């Protein structure tokens, strides 16, 4: 039946109950500064990788906070760790560490299926 998935399109609504917060919890335990994001977009604007491909640091953080971790795995690979985002962040968020933790969290999730 899986090939007929399109017949049952995903709900347009955001289902709060279905948030997958495993990686969010993993990141927050280790980097609390992540909580203070106001989605100003300064990080995305300055991003060296975002200059070369469709990569959006701010959205990575947003997906994480909203428990939307399906797309994270591919997206987070694009980061070059240059640190510009961290240097412009008006909220002093340690973004580089957040990305490192997401990468680590996903790798652990894939190997162990638990965190």
């Amino acid at each position, binding site marked *: 039946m899986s090939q007929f998935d399109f017949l049952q399109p995903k709900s347009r609504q955001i289902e709060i109950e279905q948030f997958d917060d495993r990686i969010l919890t993993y990141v927050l335990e280790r980097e609390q500064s992540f909580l203070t994001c106001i989605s100003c977009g300064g990080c995305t604007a300055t991003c*060296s990788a975002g*200059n070369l491909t469709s990569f959006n640091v701010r959205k990575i953080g947003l997906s994480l906070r909203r428990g939307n971790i399906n797309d994270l795995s591919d997206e987070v690979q694009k980061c070059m*760790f240059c640190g*510009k985002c961290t240097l412009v962040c008006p909220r002093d968020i*340690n973004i*580089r560490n957040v990305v490192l933790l997401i*990468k680590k969290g996903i790798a652990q999730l894939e190997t162990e299926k638990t965190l």
Partner: protein
Amino acid sequence: MEALLHRKIFRKNPVLGYMHMSLAFGWFLLIVVGHLETMIAEHSLFVPFHKAVFFRYYEGFDEFFLSGLFSFLMDFLLLFVLSGLMFAIVKRFRKKLFGLRRTTHLKSGDKIALTSLWLIFPLRLLAESTSAAVYHNGGFLTSGVGAAIDFIGNPAIFYYPLWMAYSLSLGFFFVALPNSRYMHIPTEVVFIFLRVAGIRLKKQNDSYTDVQVFSCSRCGICLDKCQLSVAGIDDSQSVYLLKNIRNKNLSDEKLFNCLMCGRCQVDCPVGIETIELRTVQRIESTREYNSSYDYLIQEVATKADVVYFAGCMTHLTPRVISSMKKIFATAEEDVWFMDEVKAPCCGRPLMLAGQYEAARKLIENNSRMILDSGAHTLVVSCPICYKVFKEDYKLPDVEVVFHAQYIYDLIHSGKLSVDTSNQRMVYHDPCELGRGMGMYETPRKLLGRIGEVVHMKDEKEYAFCCGGSLGNLKISEDKRKLLRDQALVTYEGFSPDILVTACPKCKKTFAAGRKLKVFDLAEIVAGAICVDSLSKEKEILEKQEADCYAVEGL
């Protein structure tokens, strides 16, 4: 010999140096001289090892060749070791007397080894003294102490128990040794030998990393050098890193909580490559998730003589970029500004995060661009980029030059002339440029042509980190500010007119501290460029030729 003497500790702290030397070198001589003594006494080249160690136990009333000299020598060496031991005991309880603010915490294996080590020599003294009392011989020390024992009671009663206690403490020490920090005694010899032979760490864990890890005596000298303690971080320093590797309980939180500034490595008496070791651990820790960056495409390069790569950080310090542009224009150089609009990162920040394989992809992409340009020189104004371009890029026929050197050469060859002023400048050595690449003099010589560079105590290899280091992925911004202010307050103490550095990251970090006006050296040069008549230029050229001799070393 280096392992026994440790000249480096002497330079930093003579008392500590004496302590180590008396214990290590004294004990070593005690063994060697004792062995010689036994050989002579036994008239044999081959004597059992235990005979030498417990020589006085086997010794009887017989006199032998030079026995008087030997017993004097042995007593003197024992006293030498005991004096060191006394320092060691005082140090353990009163570390401040030794100029150490922090020492390492001991674990149980260390405690057993430490106690037995402390007991070995006093017990040996007592045991040998009782022998001396029994046989009425011994040197100046043992005979004296022997006489005292004789005075207290019959030395024959103490004789066996004391020799037994001495041999037990010796035994305990060697049993505890592999599980304690004294493992450095055998390992260090191997390490120093390998190091002198030119063996370096590879980018993965192997037996040489183990050798380095076990060579650490946990003396704690690196603790005092580490700036992180200013921010209350006291569990991730090099000595703990090595301990955690040894005990296989290194967490990411500790592994990545390090500025990678290299201050600890400068003073390590054993010469352990603390930064490289940590890099290797970071590589191992992140091996599973290196990125492929398959979105990178080959852009078309512009043909030019010189390629300028500003780097990611420099795009947030436009004053550096406009200064470089002014310098290039004045010197009429044919320059292609490679990352003016876009370019991948140099790869160094990835390496600092342990992602060497991922960094390779960026390096490949950038290398092709640079080579396609046909340039003979690559100029970089960021030390973070400079380090990776110089060490990890393979760019045949392209000279990688740091902007300080490049500008200096332009002035030297007369393509650029600068006015002098009487500005007093403090020059901050960026970690990646100074300790990272060993470039200390060029920026100072360049700035010295324009103003006065203030000489400071903590400079060059002892320079502070600004606190902004990309090497640390864990530290919070608030804590970074504490490190920054420590450096800034020190620099303020020299009341300079301005603070000059050569790294965009240091510059931004210090500027946010708002205590001093901060400039990159390119800005200083661009501000001092004189656009004047040919005659003055000629005059300067002549002056430069005269100066040439003064700066031959460059």
